[in-house]
């Protein structure tokens, strides 16, 4: 099976090259047979990559350590679950997995469009095959072939990095990859529009679902990554401004900008060049993210290896795409002129533009902070690292402006807003903002950043709440419906608008949680069994923690565990007994240093987070020495942190609302034809 997989990867190479060439040729010469062949090529590549992935899977399951990749990321004792997910545990497999997902999305795209959007499809097929070809070339020629064999067969593999043996780690990378790769489809449509000259808003309408899907996966993938860091890295944080985290945030930022600015192109025919640039930028940033992770150029907790050849190949690919797209955009510049101008500074359009500038500013700061160490090292020869203070200083203010815009935007009318109306619409939200700010101040929550963030959160929530209320009331009045029904219909009739607002609420929840970090409590104690310590939460209650003792269990090499030292801590909150918490040190066969497993007790208000920082006498503890029970315990209290995960859920719900297909488009198109002449305003409402 594994050999067949390797063989399949080699066949995929000419098939993708053929598909790419025929796609572009078929588009140019308008020959349907060439295009059909190119499209079938995509299905074929997908099939071949499935075979290749099965090949890698079979090698993992069969403990075939003659393969470098299997020997490096697995061993006999590894749990079955992690053997299956071994495909994306390391660089080589991830690249194959990436190509596989891209081929999967490409196949869906070709299948969906087999009878429609045919003017775009030749070039779409060409671009998709081109990107697939790139990944296959990387796999085969950049010394990252997952099928590379060792000169000998080791008795056992080196095993999987224990930090990667975590549930979140098995779903975080695939989710991000889903986001990264699905963005290739809008990019392919954009390039197709540039090539076939159909530069109205259609390519955007055609790919809106893809854009949202990709955005959803990116968002959720990033949040999964935060969750993994929070649980597994063992110091209580969820975001490190680590290069790879930054790299995944970058396309999210530009994709968010894109999601907003396409609305202006759709409704006003403006910003065509800008949208083209954003889609190009986002696509390049998804490749850049892969590049950063997979080339190991920048040191990061995620980087896999220090391989330069692959870096050059990636840089070459990104450079080619960038140059090609710039040439195409310049060539089509006359057709990319706007139909309209922004009529007034006070309009939804200009609010969106401002939002775009902020997001891009944010992205640029992150980008610069990420690559600066590299540039600096290249210029001065010294390693410099850019830490969280830089990112926080630059991005907190921008982030706050963006949060405020999430509330301001919806209240401003399209085209031109009247100042009087603005005043009227902002009176209540601003009063709420001031009231919440004052209340926080007097309740003692005076940390400036938290105070400002929470006040703005209240402002945005008020605005969105009023929006929902007004819409429901208007609908209830006009249609004579009950409020609940009116609310349902309101959302159903314009899913994009209301789905978007739900996502804004989700962002408020996430910001709310971020600001809670201003009140983190962090204390360290040295404890012997029976010791009791007290830690006071910012909410005023007190935890008293009793160290119950250390239990050491020796793994028999099972799941690669050597030993496990479990510290049990019983918790009382204001004298009330809570469930026992345990935090551990684990030593794996595969690591040199013991790993920490933290204990987390989550409530809506705060997380109590315990870290077993150190054992007084590790050797003694492992050898069951009764006197070696002393530990260092770190106690963190993290207000509101759970709201990040609720926010993520809300974000997914909002995106689903916006994504959900409303009415069959063909029917709408047909009905619109018959109804439109008679009832223009009604027909337009069917979206």
């Amino acid at each position, binding site marked *: 099976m594994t*050999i*067949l997989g390797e*063989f*399949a990867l080699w*066949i995929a190479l000419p*098939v993708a090259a053929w*598909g790419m060439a025929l796609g572009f040729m078929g588009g140019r010469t*308008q020959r*349907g*047979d*060439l*295009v*059909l*062949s190119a499209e*079938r*090529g995509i299905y*074929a590549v997908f*099939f*071949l990559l499935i*075979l290749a992935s099965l090949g890698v899977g079979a090698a993992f399951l069969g403990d075939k350590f003659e393969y470098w990749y299997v020997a490096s990321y697995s061993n006999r004792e590894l749990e079955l679950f992690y053997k299956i997910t071994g495909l994306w545990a390391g660089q080589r497999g991830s690249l194959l997995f990436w190509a596989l997902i891209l081929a999967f999305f490409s196949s869906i795209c070709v299948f969906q469009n*087999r*009878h*429609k959007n*045919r*003017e775009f499809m*030749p070039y779409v097929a060409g671009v998709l095959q081109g990107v697939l070809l790139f990944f296959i070339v990387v796999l085969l020629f950049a010394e990252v072939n997952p099928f590379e064999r060792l000169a000998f067969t080791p008795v056992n593999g080196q095993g999987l990095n224990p930090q990667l043996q975590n549930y979140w780690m098995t779903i975080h990378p695939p989710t991000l990859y889903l986001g990264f790769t699905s963005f290739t489809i809008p990019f392919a449509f954009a390039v197709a529009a540039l090539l076939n000259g159909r530069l*109205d*808003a*259609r390519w955007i309408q055609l790919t809106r679902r893809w854009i949202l899907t990709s955005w959803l996966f990116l968002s959720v993938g990033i949040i999964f990554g935060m969750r993994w860091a929070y649980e597994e890295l063992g110091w209580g944080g969820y975001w490190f401004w680590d290069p790879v985290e930054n790299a995944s945030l970058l396309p999210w930022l530009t994709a968010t900008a894109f999601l907003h600015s396409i609305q202006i192109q759709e*409704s006003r*025919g403006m910003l065509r060049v800008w949208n083209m640039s954003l889609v190009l930028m986002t696509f390049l940033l998804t490749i850049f993210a892969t590049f950063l992770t997979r080339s190991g150029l920048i040191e990061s907790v995620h980087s896999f290896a220090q391989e330069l050849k692959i870096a050059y190949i990636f840089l070459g690919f990104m450079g080619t795409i960038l140059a090609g797209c710039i040439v195409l955009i310049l060539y089509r510049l006359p057709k990319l002129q706007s139909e309209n101008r922004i009529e007034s500074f006070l309009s939804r359009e200009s609010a969106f533009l401002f939002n775009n500038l902020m997001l891009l500013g944010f992205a640029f700061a992150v980008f610069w902070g990420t690559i600066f160490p590299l540039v600096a090292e290249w210029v001065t020869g010294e390693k410099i690292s850019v830490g969280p203070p830089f990112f926080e200083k630059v991005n907190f203010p921008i982030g706050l402006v963006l949060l405020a815009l999430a509330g301001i935007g919806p*209240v*401003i*009318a*399209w*085209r*031109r*807003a*009247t100042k*009087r*109306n603005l005043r*009227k*619409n902002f009176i209540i939200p601003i009063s709420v903002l001031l009231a919440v700010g004052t209340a926080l101040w007097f309740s003692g929550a005076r940390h400036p950043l938290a105070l400002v963030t929470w006040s703005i959160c209240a402002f945005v929530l008020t605005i969105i709440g009023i929006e929902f209320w*007004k*819409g429901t009331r*208007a609908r209830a009045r006009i249609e004579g419906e009950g409020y609940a029904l009116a609310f349902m219909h309101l959302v159903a009739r*314009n899913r994009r608008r209301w789905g978007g607002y739900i996502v804004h609420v989700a962002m408020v929840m996430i910001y709310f949680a971020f600001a809670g970090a201003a009140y983190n409590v962090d204390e360290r104690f040295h404890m012997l069994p029976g010791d009791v310590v007290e830690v006071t939460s910012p909410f005023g209650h007190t935890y008293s923690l009793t160290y119950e003792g250390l239990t050491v269990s020796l793994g028999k090499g099972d799941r690669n565990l050597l030993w496990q030292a479990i510290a049990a801590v019983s918790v009382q909150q204001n004298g009330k007994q809570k469930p026992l918490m345990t935090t551990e040190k684990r030593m794996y066969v595969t690591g040199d240093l013991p790993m920490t497993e933290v204990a987390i007790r989550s409530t809506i208000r705060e997380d109590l987070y315990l870290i077993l920082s150190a054992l007084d006498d590790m050797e003694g503890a492992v050898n069951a020495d009764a006197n070696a029970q002393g530990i260092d315990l770190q106690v963190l209290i993290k207000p509101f942190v759970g709201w990040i995960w609720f926010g993520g859920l809300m974000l997914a719900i909002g995106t689903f609302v916006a994504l959900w297909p409303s009415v069959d*488009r*063909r029917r709408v*198109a*047909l009905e*619109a034809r018959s109804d*439109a*002449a008679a009832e*223009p*305003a009604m*027909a*337009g*409402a069917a*979206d």
Partner: protein
Amino acid sequence: MTLFIGASLVALAVVLFILQPVVKGLHASLERDEFELTDTEARKRVALLALRDVEYDFLAEKLDEHDYRSLKAELTAEALAALEADEQAQSGAGADEDELEAEIAAIRAGLGAGSVCDACGFSNEVGSRFCASCGQAVAAEAAG
């Protein structure tokens, strides 16, 4: 041996699958399907959606009456032009983009020239007999 046969079969199947259209002359359509939006339809839809948004913004009190009426008049003109262009395109007359632009411009000009209320200066919809803003009678407009 089985491996060799398996690999050959996979390769053969793939090659046949992708070469068949070229050899047998099977063609994928490269034309727009009749159910798909045409440019003029897309334009029409955008105009109608914009109207809906203005209606909503007015209901949600983001626009005052004056702005609402003038925006609505403008958008109605755009929507009408788009509708007309769409009908022409469907009947085969084929209004291209420039014609459409010209038509919108003409209707806008008509709005400005013919339906401005003498009493309050408000731009009324095409064909209005009374001003939507102040209720005065409006002079018959030039373009319609």
